[in-house]
């Protein structure tokens, strides 16, 4: 099943043409890795999928983008973002307690029953492999956690609103290798229930977790293929150069 379908997608921020004629289909329950050097448009692409680019004052787009066969612009933006969650590059806890961070989205969507909220929070923290580390101090500030724990908290917070898709925007760029491994492990286990789009600066990470990998360069989608194929026999010379580290 196709989750996202983009046809000739162009976007601009003021004068900057950030995505140029991108055609892509994202399948349900796959992990799609998106790689490319900085300013290649990969994060702009990701933020299209939950319409976060629209916060930009000078944002414009053309072309077609649909989610579950419905044009994305026609979907109510709050319910779209509920269905398409996002984990940001840096761990960004809200200035609330651990519990309230995870409960935030649930509460905003109108859940008032305390027992239900607590159950959802516990479930989400378990899914993000954080429950055992924080279950005794749910009331402390989320900023008291380590960087890796904070990032898993952000994953739990996203999971708590029960999305269908999770967008990861370079989720490990600020983490040490052990924390990175834990986040990657969480991603692989989440795959069976969620569609995952992972933007990453780390080519090896893309190779480790992605079912398919897309390579962006200067706002264009250069190549999209099964991860193994893309990394062993890329069709495009630029892809080859990038994954071999000739530029980046």
């Amino acid at each position: 099943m196709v989750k996202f379908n983009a046809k000739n997608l162009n976007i601009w921020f003021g004068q900057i043409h950030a995505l140029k004629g991108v055609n892509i289909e994202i399948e349900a329950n796959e992990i799609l890795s998106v790689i490319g050097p900085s300013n290649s448009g990969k994060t702009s692409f990701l933020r299209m999928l939950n319409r976060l680019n629209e916060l930009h004052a000078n944002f414009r787009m053309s072309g077609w983008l649909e989610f579950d066969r419905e044009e994305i612009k026609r979907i109510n933006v709050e319910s779209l973002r509920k269905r398409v969650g996002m984990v940001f590059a840096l761990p960004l806890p809200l200035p609330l307690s651990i519990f309230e961070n995870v409960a935030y989205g649930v509460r905003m969507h109108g859940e008032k029953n305390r027992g239900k909220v607590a159950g959802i929070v516990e479930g989400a923290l378990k899914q993000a492999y954080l429950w055992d580390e924080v279950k005794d101090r749910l009331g402390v500030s989320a900023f008291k956690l380590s960087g890796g724990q904070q990032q898993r908290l952000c994953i739990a917070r996203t999971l708590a609103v029960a999305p269908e898709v999770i967008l990861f925007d370079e989720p490990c760029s600020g983490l040490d290798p052990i924390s990175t491994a834990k986040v990657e492990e969480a991603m692989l286990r989440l795959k069976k229930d969620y569609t995952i789009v992972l933007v990453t600066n780390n080519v090896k990470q893309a190779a480790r977790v992605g079912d398919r990998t897309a390579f962006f360069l200067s706002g264009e989608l250069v190549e999209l293929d099964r991860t193994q194929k893309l990394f062993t026999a890329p069709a495009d010379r630029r892809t080859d150069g990038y994954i071999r580290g000739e530029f980046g």
Partner: protein
Amino acid sequence: MRNTQRSQKIAFFFLFLATLLIVVPVGLIVVIIIQKGLPAINWQFLSDIPRQGMRAGGIFPAIIGTFYLVLGAIIFALPIGLLAAIYLSEYAKDNILNRIIKLAIVNLSGVPSVVYGLFGLALFVVFLRFGASILSGSLTLGIMILPIIVTTSREALESVPQSFREVSLSLGASKWQTIRHIVLPNAIPGILTGTILGLGRAAGETAPILFTVAAFYLPQLPKSIFDQAMALPYHLYVISTQVPNVDEKIRYGTALVLLFLVLFMNLVAIIIRYNFRKKKKW
């Protein structure tokens, strides 16, 4: 190497000197007022009405008058100022019109207070027929401190990191929910700072209340917001320049009470702000 160290020392000296130049006058003012005013402070001075043509007795009506005026000004200006600040920082698009509005509000805080006084006289006292009353005075003071409250509140709202907003929106919260639950709670300390500044200004100004509320001599407490009232700054002006032979200690005592009233009201706001900052989790 030597030279660098010497110029550093010289720079430090001048920076320290500048700081001293600010601190010393403020300290002197406080010391002189306390020194000259403290002998006048006693229970009668604080709780009695003025007697013998304001040369004796107390200043209780003026204390109460100023308290009501400041309270009224805040009750009027804080909600309106805060709502305007939310609109300007969160909803208004960045276009020429809104930039002009923002600039105009910033500049309004530089308008001389006597102009506000005349405006209040024309609008509230005469046109709306509130007469010279606590209501007119409060509204005039409120309008005077609105720009301060709007500007500081707007800055407080804008200083809440954009990333918090993005996280909240990305979880499917609406814009209003984001403002209500994330932006506003984190902006409250800054908003209170603006309120503190406004409080101090409202309590101390003479010109805006001159035509709108202040009574020269009124030896009773106001009964409603449509009554005139005495107020400390105006009373101070009157006993310093309009009434001959007022004992010096009464004048300084009045100044001291005004100083402490402002300090007390600020303290309340500072304590509230401190409690919010303590709760802040980042």
